[in-house]
């Protein structure tokens, strides 16, 4: 099996790190933790780095096995299947969340009259095609656009400096509110989990590990700067602004003569959403194949599309409902899958013999 390079893994990790964090989350966190939302994000991003370190250790111990096989070896078939099933549901929710938030964003920023059906059709077609082409094509594509995405993101941050107001008041919430906000929106984090599910497709050495860490740390810093700028610019009205990356640059009327500067943000979000959904959908299909061995990824895609379209059109699910559901149910899912499962994986790496690397 051909594997993806460590740079491609680093790019995937960075794209996943951006997921669900640069549009609505800053505003949602402000409602609970005020400007201390920045520290909530900081702590949860640190947790992602720890996840990444666990991933490296696991890869070191099991260089050839896939995630399902690792769990099966250590916990038995039933728990392995159960884990995959939970991950399948979890991924479905994550994709739905990224999709709904992106749709809301594009509708506001690009075209108010954009039909929901056309948006669904375009997104699904492109993402399905990406999955059909396979992980290597997808990661190459992400690698190709990554520099462009980062340049656009940094450009947005630089433009936001012109709108800088004053530093917000930090450490003004009590510890309970702080923890509560982190718990409620924990499902917006932990996307590094997807790397665990691609463990057997990744080629990794010591140099590669360093490269991934540098990429992830840089992305983490960029995300934190975004939060700092957002809270500094909007301060008491942060809860109103639901499209952080765009709002920080369109705030000032000094830029109105320069045309639609938010196009830079729109392009960034477009690529990020597309890649995030595609990679999550790929992992979804991978889990589906392992859960139902006789079926291939086409069945996985068809199942996903049918479920997705049914939910979208029948229940007319929107941003408010999905985040409400997320804050109600998903924290428990997230804690089990994002943190308990990787900790168990860490325990698997203690003792025993290392697998021989066949690759």
């Amino acid at each position, binding site marked *: 099996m051909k594997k993806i390079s460590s740079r491609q893994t680093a790019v995937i990790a960075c794209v996943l790190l951006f997921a669900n964090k640069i549009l609505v989350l800053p505003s949602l966190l402000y409602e609970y933790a005020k400007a201390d939302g920045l520290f909530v994000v900081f702590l949860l991003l640190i947790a992602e780095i720890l996840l990444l370190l666990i991933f490296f250790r696991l890869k070191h111990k099991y260089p050839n096995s896939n995630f399902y096989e690792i769990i099966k070896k250590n916990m038995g078939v039933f728990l392995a299947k159960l884990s995959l099933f939970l991950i399948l549901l979890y991924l479905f929710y994550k994709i739905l969340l990224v999709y709904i938030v992106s749709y809301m964003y594009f509708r506001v920023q690009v075209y108010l009259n954009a039909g929901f059906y*056309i948006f669904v*059709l*375009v997104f699904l*077609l492109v993402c399905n*095609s990406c999955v059909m082409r396979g992980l290597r094509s997808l990661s190459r594509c992400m690698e190709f656009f990554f520099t462009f995405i980062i340049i656009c993101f940094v450009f947005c941050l630089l433009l936001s400096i012109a709108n800088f107001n004053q530093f917000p008041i930090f450490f003004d919430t009590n510890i309970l509110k702080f923890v509560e906000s982190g718990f409620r929106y924990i499902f917006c984090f932990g996307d590094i989990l997807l790397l665990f599910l691609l463990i057997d497709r990744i080629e990794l050495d010591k140099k590669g590990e360093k490269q991934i860490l540098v990429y992830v740390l840089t992305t983490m810093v960029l995300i934190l700067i975004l939060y700092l700028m957002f809270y500094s610019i909007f301060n008491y009205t942060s809860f109103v602004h639901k499209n952080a990356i765009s709002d920080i640059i369109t705030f000032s009327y000094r*830029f*109105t003569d320069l045309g639609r500067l938010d196009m830079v943000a729109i392009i960034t979000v477009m690529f990020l959403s597309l890649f995030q959904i595609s990679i999550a959908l790929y992992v979804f299909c991978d889990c589906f194949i392992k859960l139902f061995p006789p079926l291939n990824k086409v069945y996985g895609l068809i199942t996903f599309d049918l479920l997705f379209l049914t939910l979208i059109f029948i229940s007319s699910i929107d941003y408010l409902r999905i985040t409400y559901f997320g804050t109600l149910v998903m924290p428990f899912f997230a804690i089990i899958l994002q943190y308990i499962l990787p900790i168990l994986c860490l325990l698997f790496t203690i003792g025993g013999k290392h697998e021989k690397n066949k690759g």
Partner: protein
Amino acid sequence: MKKIKDSIKRTPMLLSLVLILFCFFPTAIITPSESAVNAIVTAVGLDKNDQGYEVTLMTFLSHPNQSYSEQYEVFSSSAPSISEAFENASLQIGKNISLFHTHTAIVSEKLLEDDIASSLDYLGRVASLPQSCVLISTNVTSKQFLEFIQELDKESDINLEDLLFYTSNYALWKYTTINSFYEGYYSPVKSSVLGHLVITEGDINGIPIENAEKVVGFGDQEGQNNQNSGGENSSEEQQSKNASETQNSTSKNEQTSEQQPNSNSKQIQIINDGSSLLIKNGKMQAHLTKELLRGLNWLNSATTGEVIALENVTDEKFENAKLIYKVQNQQILERFEFENDIPVYTANIKLFVSLLEADASKEDMLQSKETAYISERVRQFIEKKVKNEINNSIEFLSTQKCDTLGVYEKFYKANRKQTKEFLQTKDIEPEEFLENVVFKVIVSLFPV
């Protein structure tokens, strides 16, 4: 067939592209042009009347013409709520109201008698309205204001956007957008500032228009009362007109102007001197005159270009001269400390000034031509003047309990524990903090 299947399998993205084009192509062909279905609104005015709200829209309508001139029309519509008024306007114009290019929202002083946060709620929620939309107030009704601007645009090519852009950059000391209003509204001191543009009659330094009769409420005797009453008269006329019509009261300004008495001799002017309104709890608290504004501008390093006029200066080089200095740059160093449990705000202001103009005798003029001239006497004059202006402005803000300078927040950030204790000891609210602060201002002058 097998070949097609193989190519699809090899390049699924190509199939996706074809399918997407297949979906978009027919819809793109049958969809009418944007300008045919959308009315592009560049400014929104909000007023209150008996029906609830009156929304006035300055709208760009695209007509084919050979002069490259942009044609704007002013429409208004009344309804119990702002969103309904927008819907009514849309029905009457026969186009969707597009707020993507709206750069200004205007509220009248009458509207500001009540909390405008709820009135602005629609504009805050509507996704298409740019965040950079400037929020200003006016002494007349918003409808009158926009009609005036329409005439001004026709006569002089000066438009509202240019006017506000200049004001925000060179005269005002704070942002005055919908967001900045809400920021003040939700802050602990509950105060914000709105830019204020006055439309009035008379020989004042403003931009006049000759076709005053076209503007509703002006050009007649009643229109002379520009403080609120002008707006009320206009509203009453509009309401009486509305009574005979349906609830939808969209009207073009040309139609209304026919009902107004003509008075070509009078000039109506717009006064843009950077004066503002102090807003507290969403209501108008007081007028911030340009003199008071100057005092606040000294505490803001972002504002430059202030001019200081000194009368009867007698020093080594001048005798009874009038000297005009321009502040080329200013730097402020602020300190927020508690001295003996009393909050003390220290501002060290460095002004870099140059002599812009000297009205003096021939001999004095010959002696001193350089711009970097500052004598000890001039230094004392300017320092005293600046300190006085700052003191007056702060005193005014304190009496109004409007801490728009953000002094409370700065103290809270610098000395959180002491600030909290101070509020508890004095048993006061954050909005009352400013009046308990001791201000120490040090002004230093540097010639450039």
